[in-house]
């Protein structure tokens, strides 16, 4: 009922762990798979070890609206990540290696390494909103996005997913420039800031951060809706998914699968199990045999 296939990779459900949440350690990823995730995207890994920003790196919004974070692409470097990938692959669910680079060559090198480590696909981080010279700073330039995707595609045989930013007014144009990828992932976090009025300064040490959680869900649903009707590759929805109904919204907007992160904070580490049950209950009640029947049904044609 929940089985989906993307680029020939089978997922027992369409609920994939999003990059950046509990995916630095292979053991933690294994645990999340054992608690119901249909797939795992790793933390974004770069060429070299990177410390990221000092604390505070996270801010909890009131009333469960979500989180603002600026971890700053902290990662151990690609050469130290092989062990984590192998542990994650032990889980039996597909593992997607997330990578970030400054140019075509770095992305291609990292993708090749991930392929050697055995991942099922790579996800290009073209959308982190809080690291200078990386992520969104690259991902808002359609020409650069096109040439990075092209270079990576030419160097690896596994599927290449491109994760795009919502921090642009040209989202369809950028999506089209990335159409050489095997799938598009929308959206990454929304660039934001929180100021503590008693301290009279931004809370995050980096000042800016990326907003996630229920407060950004309508932005993600809109982005998936806008993009999926304009491209011929599968779209994977991300942004604020916390319940089974949230998943259905993204699917109906045109997503084939979804990625989930902040919901772990809101509903616990077994959130994938909970959402899976909510989805099944809804599909049964509405007499839907396969969730794939619902992909894009909300699109006005």
């Amino acid at each position: 009922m929940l089985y989906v296939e993307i680029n020939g990779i089978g997922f027992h459900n369409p609920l994939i762990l999003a990059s950046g949440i509990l995916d630095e350690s292979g053991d933690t990823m294994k645990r999340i798979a054992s608690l119901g995730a249909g797939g795992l995207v790793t933390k974004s890994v770069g060429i070299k070890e990177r410390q990221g920003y000092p604390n505070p790196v996270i801010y909890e919004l009131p009333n469960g609206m979500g989180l603002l974070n600026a971890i700053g692409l902290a990662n151990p470097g690609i050469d130290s990540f092989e062990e984590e990938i192998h542990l994650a692959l032990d889980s039996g669910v597909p593992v997607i290696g997330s990578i970030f680079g400054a140019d075509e060559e770095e992305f291609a090198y990292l993708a090749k390494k991930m392929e050697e480590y055995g991942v099922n696909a790579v996800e290009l981080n073209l959308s982190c909103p809080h690291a200078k010279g990386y992520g969104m700073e690259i991902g808002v330039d359609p020409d650069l996005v096109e040439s990075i995707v092209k270079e990576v595609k030419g160097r690896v045989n596994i599927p290449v997913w491109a994760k795009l930013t919502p921090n642009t007014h040209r989202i369809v144009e950028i999506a089209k420039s990335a159409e050489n990828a095997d799938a598009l992932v929308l959206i990454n976090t929304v660039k934001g800031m929180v100021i503590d009025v008693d301290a009279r300064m931004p809370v995050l040490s980096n000042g800016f951060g990326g907003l996630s959680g229920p407060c950004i869900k309508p932005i993600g649903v809109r982005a998936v809706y806008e993009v999926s009707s304009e491209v011929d590759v599968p779209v994977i929805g991300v942004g604020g998914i916390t319940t089974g109904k949230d998943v259905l919204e993204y699917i109906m907007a045109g997503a084939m699968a979804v990625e989930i992160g902040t919901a772990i904070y809101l509903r616990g580490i077994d959130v994938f199990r909970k959402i899976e049950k909510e989805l099944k209950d809804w599909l049964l009640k509405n007499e839907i045999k396969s969730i794939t029947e619902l992909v894009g049904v909300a699109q006005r044609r």
Partner: protein
Amino acid sequence: MKMYRVVEIERIRQEARNVKTFRFADDSSPLPGQFYMIWIPGVDEFPMSISYTGALKGFTVKKIGRGTSRMHDLEPGDKIWIRGPYGRGFHIDKRRKSLVVGGGSGMATLGPLIEEIKGDVIIAARTKEELIFTERFSHLNPWIATDDGSAGFKGYATDLARKLVEEREYDIIYACGPEQMIKGLVDLAFERDIDIQVSLERLMKCGIGICDSCSINGYRVCVDGPVFFKEELKNMDELGKVRRGWSGKREVVR
């Protein structure tokens, strides 16, 4: 959802070399073993376990990094920003005969627990000047251990604990302190078939269970812990061996 609140430091006490207790009022209700994130704006944010519960709460802070060093410069009337309490505290059964083992600043975490249980207490440190809470718990006649023998038993806390366990009957060991000490006590508990709960420490960023920095064998110290139970410790092979640095890279625990 734990929002920051600003609390004023009311009293400060020098506990030992490089260790001070900061008392403040806050209406949260922490359990022994839980922790808070302390933010000193413009400096750092770091996790700190609660050392005094009740109306006038306390953090007992060892000077180890940027944030804790700045904290040591604070005076009564100064403010800190806190969020919490977070994590899983100790599960306390008052009927069980307990052995509590605190190594160095690990005693800070055990303070509120000791007030609720019955049994024996070991306060251990490298040297006499680093012992904390010996006065606070003087009415319990705590056992003292120092690595250099400058006070009490000369040797490691684990050696003294082993001696006590052999001479007396305990239902449970509670411990917090250096990881090698904890590892030794976990091994002792399995060997002697005694229950055990330990509070672990790892480098922590978010404090809310999403960043994976503090994870040990898939367990998040900030949410699943910091207090872990015997059945969880059984398969925790990274204990005393592997932790993660700020980048997430694996490091050797010394």
